[in-house]
């Protein structure tokens, strides 16, 4: 566990990316229907998929 210290930028990179994607998803379905809804579903699914993947990996 004695890996090198990570920079702040490095620590928050993935969470910030997921947050930005989530915001896009939350707003997109408000703007329109059809393609905007689909963009929203895909964007908001991403954080949940990430959680699922890490939990699955850890449980193996």
């Amino acid at each position, binding site marked *: *566990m*004695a*890996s*090198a*210290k*990570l920079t*702040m930028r490095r*620590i*928050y*990179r*993935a*969470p910030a990316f*997921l*947050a*930005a994607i*989530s*915001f896009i998803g*939350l707003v997109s*379905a*408000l*703007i*329109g*229907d059809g393609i*905007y*809804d689909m963009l*929203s*579903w895909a964007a*908001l*699914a991403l*954080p*949940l998929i*990430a*959680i699922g*993947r*890490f*939990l699955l*990996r*850890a*449980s193996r």
Partner: protein
Amino acid sequence: MQASSLRLWYQVHKWTSLICTIFLLILCLTGLPLIFHDELSPQARPAATGMPLAGLNEIMASAKKSRPGEVVLYVTEPLEENNTISVTMGASTAVPADSMHLVVLDAHTAQVVDHGSRSRGIIDFILELHTDLFAGSPGRLFLGVMALLFLAATISGVVLYAPFMRRLPFGSMRFAAARRVRWLDLHNLLGVTTVAWVLVVGVTGGINTLGTFVAGYWQSTELAAMIAPYRDQPLPQELSSVQAAVHLARREEPGMTLSTVAFPGTPFAGKHHYGVYLRGNTPLTSRLLKPLLIDAETGQLTAKRDMPWYVKCLFISEPLHFGDYGGMPLKLLWAGFDVVTIGVLISGLCLWRLRS
């Protein structure tokens, strides 16, 4: 970060979380079925008939026949196109909201599909628990304060994420480690990946707790100014056609459709007018209502104005809190985030118990 400021953030996170967690758990558990409120509430729905829509005058006559002796307070076209129109009725225009009856009619044939005498279902109780803990306005404000604490807990949690993750790549789950470390990794992963959704739903939930106050403020300032010229006028004797009023409002605002007509005497219309509330046609603008006041005796348009920013904030907060603006897939995602948030709360509680 300095050790002293870290300790401070830790204290903020611990105490704000400890106070609001139990209420947040209630909100998450009751919120889960409420996401599917429309699907769960039993309501007769007529099949699409392909016939032309019935006129509003016909709709009203049919509603009045189904509840003799009562007057029409509001007529509402539902946001979801399900071929129905709702008519809110009561013994008089002064009855409180819980003595009103919602009559649902087929929008094409004007036949009554629900007389409004249905007893409250379990979903209504869950909704009440979720909005005010069965404690009315004080309960609602209390939950608003809990939303503020939750906001502080979320922000301090994001700040505390860095010192814990200094040597760990994103998504690390040390399952071989001690119990407390496992809960910590789970808490960090679940919390930080859902922070955007949690912030939006938390803040809009907090705004929604102010709904009745915002409506009251708007009525006593903006609506009061719109009806002020009529203050000393005699009450209308014979009401003009509601259908004509809606027709006039829609001609005045092309591109908008009817949301609700408030009848003269109700708090959203004043004593001399029909309050015709129109809405736009996109998911966003369909939530933004615009009031037009039609003189209920002459049928003339006498005032219209856009809603002020604080009412618009309230309008936009509703879909962003309920997740009902992007079809069933969005509702399922909402449920997923809700369950993850429960995970954040429970793992946080476990962390605190293992530490103390």
